[in-house]
């Protein structure tokens, strides 16, 4: 049975429904591809979802497909096919390397494979594009809308007057579908114009001509005379000649060189915004693309081009509409932004070395007070601010305590008037992150705000210690005079601009240092792969056109004020006390340079095997060294960037920063093995330069402190030794117990041995006895056999005798007969004698049989006996 069970196998389970039965998706879970093809006849647009039931990605995408299907089921047929089951047609005919695969058909055209993100909105957008690959442009304004988009647009002009379908229209339509095959993000949009007057706007005269719109370069008309007018060619032409002022990056998740290839082209500005492809308008995106357009607008003369003027016109309302929107978003993150009349105050620090500031945004709160207000008219009175500041200074001590990174607001009454309220929102910021203020500034710099720079200056003079001129913190906002228009051609640090959907790719933003706490997933960073640096647009500034422009400008100028961004590990909690101090980018300076201790810093990475196996050594070291003069610290350099001079290219690296000579750090030599004695020697060697002069009072004091430390160290040692002793005692006891147990067991064993020996003896005795009885019985048996033999011999003799007797009787009979023949009548006598003759012979035979029987029984009992014995 064992070997048979080994061969037991089981076929795969039969396929079952993948989609729920209530889903609008038709689920062909047995892979009926033929039926799927039949279904295609029924609908103009069909989406096939080829899946494998075990595939995690298919399972994840199922919900998204369900969602899209529920929205589009009246126009599109959704068919899911199990393309894994090996009995199914689909598996037999198709050979996929991954699942799910989505194919779309527009009537007979297809398959168009969808390769975009597996998210419902993106899929739906794509399906809609397949449904209407061509946008019908009916009027002049629609044309301008179409062309003003940042994504390249292709316009075909076809006059539908005479024939039902103008020549070439179908080809153009197919080319639009075709482009979706190649360009699965659908960045090139196709439109069709039927009105001659509209077509004239883009100087198209002949029906059947195709136009590719470009913003920075001259637009093109499809060269029919050079290339054949085929769908493939049109598509190829558009793809090759399209303008990419700003590009979406959508990594597909598989192995790809996308970012490598793009970032190797040069410094790149990556802009992360949340993007919903289905939304009608994208105000933020419009604003960004406007900046991009300006940035790339190199040739001034082009501005004369008619459509670009239109573009400007059509853009401005869009821009206007985006501005309040930006404000709205802004107000979500910064509650103070809704007050139009504000001023930033930087509080004096506790001491000059502190790297943090408390910064307050002081606003005249017109909504809280009873004053008839002007909320909607941003207006700010110089006097109001003055009064507010005065009131604020009187209460500023209450704001010193603020040490949180989040903004905390409080309202307080005016010093002068019971009707005025002020709101002060304060928070602590690191010095180099002071651009908190700048975010305010960008908003209030918009021309409508009356809070003039003049007023600001006055304030500065009025209260010197409190208000710092913004200029020294945020020089990047001071060069607004440089124009961004066409900057890409004027600078030698040209940026490539990219967009990323922060709903999908926020992880890249996080890795570039986007804060994890913000709700608003907007982020911009300039990445320079060659220089291995990146700059980050302060996240406290809202991502709007002007900030972006400034960011670009600051990057482009000769002596860029931008500072390399250092990504910091947010997961380290400052207040957690560890034996080995955990250093981050933000605490590096403070822990290493500002502390009055010798610092041993261990550079590590969690993934590096050589570092992790040293943990226990550093913990031991930290427990050993006197904590009041030594710090043992470590920094995870994969999560914390450091200034160049403190970077290291190998891990682990151990640096020692001696007290009072922090700038003369020394590196633990690499060819020494890292162990406790070596580390101690290293530290001893490098920390021992101080005080060889004759002892002063101070020195004596130091000495006593040192000895105190020694004493406590020794006490610790004694403690350790004590516990060691107790452990030894324990072990001793344990051993003792084990020993006594072993002895006891030995004794037991001895006893057992004795009893066993006894048993053995008795058994031996017993077996001897048995042997004796066996012999005896054997003897008896032999005797018995002899007797039997005798009996048998006797019986044989008897038989012989019997035979002799018979012969004797016969002879006597013969004699008697002859006598009778003579005396009596012959016949009767003869028969009588014959009868007599037979009976004795039978009697002897019977008696003999009986005897044999007897012998038999004796023999069997004897056998039985001997059998018993052997048993």
């Amino acid at each position: 049975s064992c070997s048979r069970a080994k061969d037991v196998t089981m076929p795969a389970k039969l396929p079952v429904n993948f989609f729920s039965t209530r889903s609008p998706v038709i689920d062909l879970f047995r892979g009926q591809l033929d039926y799927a093809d039949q279904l295609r006849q029924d609908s103009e647009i069909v989406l096939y979802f080829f899946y494998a039931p075990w595939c995690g990605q298919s399972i994840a995408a199922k919900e998204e497909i369900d969602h899209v299907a529920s929205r589009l089921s009246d126009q599109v047929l959704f068919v899911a096919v199990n393309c894994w089951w090996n009995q199914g047609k689909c598996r037999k005919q198709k050979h996929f390397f991954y699942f799910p695969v989505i194919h779309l058909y527009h009537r007979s055209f297809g398959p168009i494979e969808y390769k975009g993100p597996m998210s419902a909105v993106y899929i739906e957008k794509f399906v809609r594009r397949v449904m209407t690959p061509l946008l019908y442009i009916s009027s002049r304004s629609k044309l301008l809308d179409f062309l003003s988009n940042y994504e390249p647009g292709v316009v075909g002009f076809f006059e539908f007057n005479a024939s039902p379908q103008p020549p070439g229209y179908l080809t153009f339509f197919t080319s639009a579908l075709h482009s979706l095959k190649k360009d699965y993000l659908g960045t090139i949009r196709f439109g069709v114009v039927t009105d001659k007057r509209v077509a004239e706007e883009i100087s198209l005269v002949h029906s059947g001509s195709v136009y590719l719109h470009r913003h920075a370069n001259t637009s093109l008309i499809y060269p029919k005379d050079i290339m054949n007018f085929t769908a493939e060619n049109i598509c190829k032409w558009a793809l090759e000649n399209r303008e990419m002022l700003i590009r979406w990056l959508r990594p597909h998740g598989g192995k790809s060189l996308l970012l490598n290839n793009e970032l190797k082209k040069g410094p790149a500005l990556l802009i992360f915004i949340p993007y919903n492809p289905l939304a009608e308008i994208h105000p933020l995106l419009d604003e960004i693309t406007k900046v991009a357009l300006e940035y790339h607008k190199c040739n001034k003369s082009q501005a004369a081009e008619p459509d670009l003027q239109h573009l400007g016109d059509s853009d401005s309302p869009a821009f206007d509409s985006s501005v309040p929107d930006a404000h709205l978003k802004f107000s979500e993150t910064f509650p103070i932004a809704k007050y139009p009349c504000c001023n930033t105050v930087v509080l004096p620090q506790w001491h000059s070395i502190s790297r943090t500031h408390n910064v307050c945004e002081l606003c005249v709160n017109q909504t809280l007070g009873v004053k008839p207000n002007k909320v909607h008219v941003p207006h700010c009175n110089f006097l109001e601010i003055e009064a507010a500041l005065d009131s604020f200074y009187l209460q500023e001590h209450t704001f010193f305590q603020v040490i949180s990174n989040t903004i905390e607001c409080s309202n307080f009454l005016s010093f002068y008037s019971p009707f005025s309220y002020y709101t002060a929102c304060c928070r602590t910021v690191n010095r180099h992150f002071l651009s908190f203020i700048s975010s305010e500034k960008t908003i209030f710099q918009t021309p409508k705000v009356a809070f003039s720079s003049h007023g600001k200056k006055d304030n500065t003079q009025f209260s010197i210690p409190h208000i710092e001129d913004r200029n020294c913190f945020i020089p990047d906002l001071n060069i607004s005079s440089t124009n961004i228009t066409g900057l890409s051609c004027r600078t030698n640090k040209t940026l490539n601009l990219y967009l990323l959907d922060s709903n999908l790719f926020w992880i890249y933003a996080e890795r570039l240092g986007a804060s994890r706490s913000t709700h608003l997933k907007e982020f911009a960073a300039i990445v320079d792969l060659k220089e291995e640096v990146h700059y980050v647009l302060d996240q406290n500034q809202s991502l709007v056109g002007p900030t972006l422009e400034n960011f670009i400008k600051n990057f482009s100028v000769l002596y860029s004020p931008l500072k390399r961004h250092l990504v910091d590990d947010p997961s380290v909690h400052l207040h957690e006390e560890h034996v080995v101090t955990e250093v981050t980018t933000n605490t590096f300076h403070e822990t290493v340079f500002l502390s009055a201790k010798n610092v041993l810093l261990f550079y590590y990475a969690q993934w590096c095997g050589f570092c992790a196996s040293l943990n226990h050594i550093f913990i031991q070291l930290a427990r050993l060294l006197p904590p009041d003069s030594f710090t043992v610290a470590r920094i995870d350099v994969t999560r914390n960037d450091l200034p160049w001079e403190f970077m290291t290219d190998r891990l682990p690296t151990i640096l020692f920063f001696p007290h009072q000579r922090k700038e003369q750090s020394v590196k633990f030599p690499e060819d020494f093995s890292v162990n406790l004695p070596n580390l101690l020697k290293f530290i001893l060697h490098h920390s021992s330069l101080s005080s060889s002069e004759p002892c002063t009072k101070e020195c004596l004091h130091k000495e006593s402190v040192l000895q105190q430390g020694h004493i406590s160290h020794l006490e610790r040692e004694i403690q350790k030794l004590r516990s060691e002793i107790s452990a030894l005692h324990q072990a001793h006891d344990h051993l003792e117990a084990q020993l006594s147990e072993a002895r006891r067991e030995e004794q037991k064993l001895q006893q057992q041995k004795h009893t066993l020996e006894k048993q053995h003896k008795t058994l031996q005795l017993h077996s001897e006895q048995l042997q004796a009885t066996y012999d005896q019985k054997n003897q008896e048996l032999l005797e018995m056999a002899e007797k039997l033999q005798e009996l048998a011999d006797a019986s044989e003799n008897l038989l012989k005798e019997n035979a002799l007797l018979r012969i004797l009787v016969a002879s006597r009979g013969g004699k008697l007969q002859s006598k009778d023949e003579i005396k009596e009548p012959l016949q009767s006598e003869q028969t009588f004698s014959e009868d007599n003759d037979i009976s004795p012979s039978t009697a002897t035979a019977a008696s003999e049989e009986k005897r044999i029987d007897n012998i038999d029984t004796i023999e069997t009992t004897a056998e039985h006996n001997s059998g018993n014995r052997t048993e």
Partner: protein
Amino acid sequence: AAMQRFLGSLLCLCALRLPAGTGTAARGLDVASYRERVRAMFYHAYEHYLESAFPYDELRPLTCDGQDTWGSFSLTLIDALDTLLILGNVSEFQRVVNVLQEGVDFDIDVNASVFETNIRVVGGLLSAHLLSRKAGVEVEAGWPCSGPLLRMAEEAARKLLPAFQTPTGMPYGTVNLLHGVNPGETPVTCTAGIGTFIVEFATLSHLTGDPVFEDVARKALKALWKNRSDIGLVGNHIDVITAKWVAQDAGIGAGVDSYFEYLVKGAILLQDKELMSMFLEYNKAIKNYTKFDDWYLWVQMYKGTVSMPVFQSLEAYWPGLQSLIGDVDNAMRTFLNYYTVWKQFGGLPEFYNIPQGYTVDKREGYPLRPELIESAMYLYRATRDPTLLELGRDAVESIEKISKVDCGFATIKDLRDHRLDNRMESFFLAETVKYLYLLFDPDNFIHNDGSDFDVVVTPYGECVLSAGGYIFNTEAHPIDPAALHCCRKRREEQWEVEDLMREFYSRKKTKKFILKRAPDHGEGENAKDPEDASSEKAGEKRNSKKSSHSLLSCPSQSFNSKLAVLGQVFLDNT
């Protein structure tokens, strides 16, 4: 060479066959729920093993009974023991420790694989021993340098020692636990069967104080090193008597895999430069001769010509190993290649023909091996790339959908049609489930980065233990490197440390002494220490000294690693 070029072009095509649309939908992958599903998987298999198969070695999930496979040690139970603790089941851990102490006997007349017994039984018992305190088992006073489980591990290991008594020091593949090497035993052993002892055996030696284990393991490693080919590669099988290579295929997979793994892990565990320099030499040769387009092929060990253009399921441990020594970029690129194979079949076939993009005849099975998941766990530590969690998700879905049966999880006999086989290897609970769980549990104590630790008072002094940096043996049994230090090294260092500490506090008096010693003598003396540690081979050492950096270190990650997630890879120009 022509063959190579031909292959090269094919491989390029293969790598371009990229899956679409991954990565994004799983953005919000619910790690906690997957963690719980893995936990449920474990108990489904474990409970059925106890119910239907114990005390046999393995569960047969289709027939719902048990069988002995590698001996007769209740192997699945030993193997699954530390997984119990990683899942947080302390009480069951304690129960099983008692069961094993009473029930397992190595004095049996069984022919056992030296390699498998070492990695599964010795490794399992060692890690259980080292974790037993954490699991709340009442340990004896000498722990971690003594204890019942350690004694069992030692006993098992001693049964293997006769196999090492060969002219070359390379062990036989099979040994009878009662009688030693059988007469007429084949002298042909696979490379991994020779070079996969140092982690367990060095741990045993450090804990028990008996150097014999580490010595035989090192001797075997050196014998292999001596017999490498001129181009620096090792083959698949060797005759341990004559030291002639019997199978000359060189690669990183079956038959060789854990040899390389143990060179690295041994180097980390023992801070041993010699082992590391061996690995780095091999690594160079492997890159030169077997690596094509982030795949690793099989080549002839003397000529370097491609012999098999296949990827083996067992090779998938390589990216994880690379990440341990800091080669994260290459690791990720290779991992992404392997992941595409998983996506094609829902598992990794034993052999995958790379140019053809399909399974190899007779090698279509997937016995629920852990290697790719293992690499995902290591890489996730290094990169936090969500793609790695997606592999975890795919593995959970696949294993549950394909191989779950009423009595456990069955080996997939054929990945083309997902037919199941009547076997559940013990590594499923020891490794596959463990690595999956650890992938989804970033706060597990195994991932401790050194912010937590235990102080243990032993009769030999005070030890810092459980400070992270666990080294997994090739059967996923974690070894605490601090424990090795605790039992032997610490005692050696103790008095030296004591003297040095005295100097710290009496600096004034002895300052001269230090200053004097430091320039002329101190360095020299210091320099001696590592030399002693890295022992004999002078040639190797000179090599290491020449190189500009320590062998026992990782390169820091490059700038572009910030963006190397969600499948993005960067080509370095250097």
